């Protein structure tokens, strides 16, 4: 690293959590530092820290104030942030099947039109990307991915939908994501995956980890239907590439 990055800001989230903020914006470099601090705490647990929640720009560190105070924990977090832990040599890479367009991706045509291109070209660009799980949040398994091609950036919809299908693959702003459960969304729906990133009676319950890499591979609607049945029965239909 040519220059030492500025230290993160420590922001209290009440008396039992600290927000370690690396950036105010969606920022890939900041997200890498978030994930590096998350790894560092996982490797060297800090007494009293109960869980960490990585996001694009900050790491929320939950702790028990009876076991560790704000000042001592804050100092330790700043120290750990100074020496980012490198990525694990064997970071997982997933290939996630997606059926694009049609009834499974009702916004694909309009999305392509708004970009002055074709649905085929839109899909090709989305499939060409290599993404990293920047954070998982909002609802179980909702995985926010960084690495979206600039030509696919698109503001969120004016009117969010109250219900969008489980497994939706969508784009909102500069982000793309894998949604697990059916629910509200203001993003543009490009397709669906049969992969369940969260499934209660399966091992593992949560498929993706923050920091995992993801690529998408197109499948047709018939393959989607077959894999969807298999996935419902507990099969992991995502492919672990490396």
């Amino acid at each position, binding site marked *: 690293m040519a220059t030492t990055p500025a230290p993160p800001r420590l*922001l*209290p*989230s*009440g*008396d*039992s*959590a600290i*927000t370690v*903020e690396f*950036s*105010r*914006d*969606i920022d890939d470099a900041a997200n890498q530092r978030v994930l590096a601090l998350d790894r560092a705490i996982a490797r060297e647990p800090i007494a009293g820290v*109960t*869980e*960490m*929640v*990585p*996001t*694009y*720009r*900050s*790491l*929320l560190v*939950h702790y028990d*104030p*009876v076991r560790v*105070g*704000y000042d001592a924990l804050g100092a330790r977090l700043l120290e750990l942030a100074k020496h980012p832990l490198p990525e694990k040599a064997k970071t997982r890479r997933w290939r996630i099947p997606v059926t694009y367009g049609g009834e499974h991706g009702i916004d694909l045509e309009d999305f392509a039109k708004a970009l002055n291109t074709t649905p085929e070209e839109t899909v090709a660009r989305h499939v060409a990307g290599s993404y990293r799980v920047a*954070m*998982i*949040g*909002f*609802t*179980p*398994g*909702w995985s*926010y991915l960084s690495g979206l091609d600039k030509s696919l950036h698109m503001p969120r919809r004016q009117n969010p939908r109250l219900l969008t299908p489980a497994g939706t693959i969508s784009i909102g702003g500069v982000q793309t994501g894998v949604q*697990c*459960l059916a629910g509200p969304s203001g993003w543009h729906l490009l397709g669906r995956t049969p992969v369940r990133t*969260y499934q*209660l009676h399966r091992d593992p319950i*949560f498929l993706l980890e*923050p920091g995992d890499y993801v690529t998408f591979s197109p499948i047709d609607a018939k393959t989607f239907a077959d894999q969807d049945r298999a996935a419902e029965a507990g099969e992991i239909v995502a492919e672990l590439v490396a």
Partner: protein
Amino acid sequence: MPKLVIASIGPASSVQDGGRPGSQRYGLTPSGAMDRLGLATANVLLGNAPLAAAIEIGPFGAAFTARGGPVRLALSGAQRSVDIAKRPVAFDSSMTVADGEMLTLGFARSGSFSYLALEGGIAGEPTFGSLAVNARAGLGSPYPRPLQAGDELQAVTASGAPERSIDLPAVPDVPIRVVPGPQDDEFSEQAKALFLGSDWKISATSDRMGYRLEGPVIQHLHGHNIVSDGMVNGSIQVPGNGQPIVLMPDRPTTGGYPKIATVISADFGRFAQISAGRIFRFKAISIAEAQEAARAFSELLRTLPDRRRGIENFNIEALRDANVAGSAVNAVDVGTWQSSSA
């Protein structure tokens, strides 16, 4: 084996415990009791683990019937009238309901949530170590949804242990304490002063995800969108309409509105118990003060068992007065008011 049958119950009533923290990094909300002191008190009265699962009962009345044998229970949290087969029973105490008898609870008189614990806890299949209901994620046991009339909970035969009451510290009628941040710099000094200096009410549209506040409009300095970051119980986020929302145990794990302050953990249960429409205020304190309060609250939970006492010390006149508001009580027979199936 006896069971407890729910004869009637209002909305916002579900099985809750200490919740399922630990998977927020996967988007799984922790859930758990709105008022941990209420939950712990009900459990400790029966010798259960303090944060074992119990029935969290919303502001409306409820009724339960013991079937197949006597069932021992305890009640705490929001005060309300209680009777067993029309015999009034003290609040914040254990009680035994004989086979076929009905336990009837009135509306919450102060607060919103009461906790009904069962001796031996609630039987169910934990997910992530918890029976707490999270209806959106389909989690919770024995029913992954709010409770309704006709539901049945497996119980153990009442042990016959002497009934107990508990001396709880008085709930102070003082402002809800908050620690400013994490995004208090998204608000002007004027907006922060307005937040801390105004009367607030909890909207009737509030639920276990969030309490919507009604009061003056709190304006943002730079708009209401921030890049999502993590949230906690008690995070006070301010969306575009300037009316704050306090996040409760069924909240999302992350969110994209600026958070002006956070309710301190020691006051979270007291805040959760504020009933819709009642006026209250916030007060800012330092992290050091908040952590001191957290340690004191933890010590209170730890020492709850020492606060128990035998039930025979009850002042029956006071008990009768307390019950008059909620149910028609006449001719209380001092000798039989407490079920004696033990």
